[in-house]
């Protein structure tokens, strides 16, 4: 660099002088090399920064999937399952007459307690916006539901037909307010889970682009150096190139295995769980409708007969809209859950058969026999429903275990990549600085 003093006219600002210096400097070879050096250093640091944030963002998203996204999805599913179960149990209690069996009453109490506890846990995570509204509705609505069911049981005990009406009112509140609110909560949680998953598994285009630019720049600089000087290798730039390469490789492999594990966590984990939970939900709704047909025992039964037809159709249709068919399709490769779904389908078929018999008895005014089939543990209808429900519950547990495995792998895959990346970046930047100043230093 030529160190001639520059006589500044007093009116020219300093920054302009600096720019002129750089421009003048760039016309000389050492100046040019300095500029290139600066650019390469900047790009190297940029690669490091972008790689770091890419990995850190995806790791955070994977953490969110594991610690809040999937658990929220599971809990909201539990919530609507418990409410639907309580609805079915309430009808069964009334069918039992004035005094219900312990099993039926315990089932009902347990379902509602589970619903309220999952509600508590869901609300501890978030209480604002639409979620807050839905939670408020459920918190206030569930006690009202309990009150109406209790009144229904009292009326039945007095021998009054008003009991069936109170159950219809409670059931209407459940079906039109509480269950839709719970399903919407689940939809919100599900959407968030999907968004987090997509973020965690996304391709880091920015890092790839910057990395490619950095590599290209470093290699080009070394080639140019090799051509112009007698030295083939510039150790600084070489070290920098290797560091960037290692950084790229390590980040790619870490994110790659994380991506695979995440895909597994979705395909074997929460996606099948969603489908199976949907089927289980329809199953419980059908059970509640069957109970109501008998409880209402009159003109109100028509509505529930139609509803039950709808639920059975939803479950057993063979195409994509059939809930059991969809569950089967999502569980296709899984050796443990696929047979469970098949078991559930067979049980539902048996249930539709048993239900036909229940309706025959009901229409022939053999009410007691119809009730026995529906609420006694050895009754054909109750037994078939029980088998289907157990099979689906087992499938869900299995899939959730698969999720835990896969998401653990995904989180472990990016361990240490972020920190390692910083170290490599520093090394690479130092290499660039060293390599360039060596070159520039030769111009003395």
């Amino acid at each position: 660099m030529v160190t001639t003093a520059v006589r500044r006219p007093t009116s020219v600002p300093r920054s302009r002088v600096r720019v002129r210096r750089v421009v003048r400097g760039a016309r000389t070879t050492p100046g040019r090399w300095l500029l290139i050096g600066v650019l390469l250093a900047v790009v190297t640091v940029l690669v490091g920064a972008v790689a770091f944030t890419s990995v850190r963002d995806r790791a955070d998203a994977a953490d969110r999937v594991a610690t809040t996204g999937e658990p929220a999805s599971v809990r909201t599913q539990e919530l609507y399952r418990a409410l639907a179960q309580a609805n079915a149990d309430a009808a069964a209690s009334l069918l039992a007459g004035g005094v219900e069996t312990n099993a039926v009453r315990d089932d009902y109490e347990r379902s509602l307690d589970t619903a309220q506890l999952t509600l508590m846990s869901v609300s501890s995570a978030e209480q604002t916006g639409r979620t807050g509204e839905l939670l408020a509705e459920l918190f206030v609505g569930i006690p009202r539901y309990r009150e109406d069911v209790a009144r229904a049981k009292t009326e039945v005990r007095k021998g009054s037909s008003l009991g069936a009406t109170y159950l219809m009112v409670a059931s209407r509140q459940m079906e039109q307010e509480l269950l839709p609110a719970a399903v919407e909560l689940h939809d919100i949680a599900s959407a968030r889970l999907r968004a987090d998953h997509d973020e965690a598994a996304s391709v880091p285009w920015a890092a790839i682009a910057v990395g490619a630019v950095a590599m290209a720049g470093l290699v080009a600089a070394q080639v140019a150096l090799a051509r112009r000087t007698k030295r083939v290798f510039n150790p600084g730039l070489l070290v920098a190139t290797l560091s960037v390469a290692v950084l790229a490789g390590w980040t790619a492999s870490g994110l790659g295995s994380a991506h695979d594990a995440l895909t597994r966590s979705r395909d074997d984990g929460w996606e099948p769980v969603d489908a199976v939970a949907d089927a289980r939900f329809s199953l419980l709704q059908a059970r509640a409708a069957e109970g109501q047909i008998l409880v209402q025992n009159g003109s109100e039964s028509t509505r529930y007969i139609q509803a039950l037809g709808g639920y059975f159709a939803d479950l057993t249709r063979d195409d994509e809209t059939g809930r059991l068919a969809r569950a089967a399709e999502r569980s296709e490769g899984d050796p443990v859950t696929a047979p469970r779904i098949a078991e559930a389908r067979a049980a539902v078929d048996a249930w539709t058969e048993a239900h036909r018999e229940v309706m025959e008895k009901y229409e022939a005014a053999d009410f007691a026999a119809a009730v026995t089939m529906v609420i006694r543990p050895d009754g054909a209808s109750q037994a078939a429903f029980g088998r289907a429900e157990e099979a689906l519950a087992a499938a869900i547990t299995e899939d959730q275990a698969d999720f835990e495995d896969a998401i653990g792998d995904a989180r472990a895959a990016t361990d240490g990549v972020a920190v390692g990346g910083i170290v490599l970046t520093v090394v690479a930047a130092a290499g660039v600085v060293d390599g360039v100043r060596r070159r520039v230093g030769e111009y003395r």
Partner: protein
Amino acid sequence: MLRILAGAARLDGMRLRGTIRNAPPTPARSRLLARIAALVAGALLLAACTGDPDAHAPALPSPPARSAVVPVETPSAATVQPDCGNPELSLKPPASVPAPSAWPADSTMRRIRDRGWLIAGIDQSSYPFGYRDPVDNRLKGFDIDLIREVARAIFGDSPSDPVDNHIKFRVLTNKDREPAVKDHVVDIVAMTMTVDCARREKVDFSDVYYVAGQRVLIQKDPDLPPRVREGLPGLSGYRVCAVNGSRSFGPILDPRYGVVPVAGQTWADCLVKLQKREVEAVSTDDNILAGLRALDPNYTEIVGAPVSREPYAMAIAHEHGDFVRFVNAVLAELRRDNTWKTLYQTYIGPTLDDPDPQPPAVTAWRDAS
């Protein structure tokens, strides 16, 4: 940046020529190192910066709106009634109920008696006119017993051959009543059926055996002012329930009264709303209110003058005019020997609190007076 590298180059250039001995770090060099360190540290800090803004504690949520309201379906425009004069006029009966020996050979009664049973359309969920007693599973009610009286007049009744053996009851829905009679699926229908000209075009009716009126059921509620005892006229501003699509909505929607209409799915649903204080009153025909009152006898009462006139009669096919006259003779007999009053007091009296019920007077017929 340029200066840093330039500075570094200058210093090292000088070292290469060996003009610098082991000198302590010059201010320029330490400044340079400090700058590099600062640059890297700054870059890292920037990358590591996360930091969500602190969330404020959420405000207490407001309670959600009240539970689902069944939307009020205004009843479809009432069927335009053709003009048939006075629809309550039936065919004149003979002076007394004719004995079987007096029946003509081709009469409807002879055919029914030869067949062995009377087929009657009834309701089994309409307390107190037609219902199934859950204790002994028997059909009971004002309408049911009227059918039994008609059957008794045809078949007789003895302990060895009770009249119920000669009746086949068919449970019908409201909209099936006229077709069942017209198509001879049943011989007679007694289901709190109001006579009007539109129906008279399809079926014939016996004499009117009961006149219902739309009244109001309220709770014995200390918060309600005395004016509510006037019925619909005194309920302005209050919520009144009726079943969706029923004729009872007509008066309820009348702007003169200024009540707030609320729809229920069934009459029992309306009673539940009353008990839960979602409405202040239920309004429909007093016989249906009587049935509701029986479900909550101590704390409800039926108030208000009737705001409509609902004359009930039994429906019989047009072709069976002789049967119409026969049934009218049976009804005349029931009025004369106070059986009507007994039936009233058995089924309707306890809930309507009418101290001196009178059967509707029948003094005119369309083919004579």
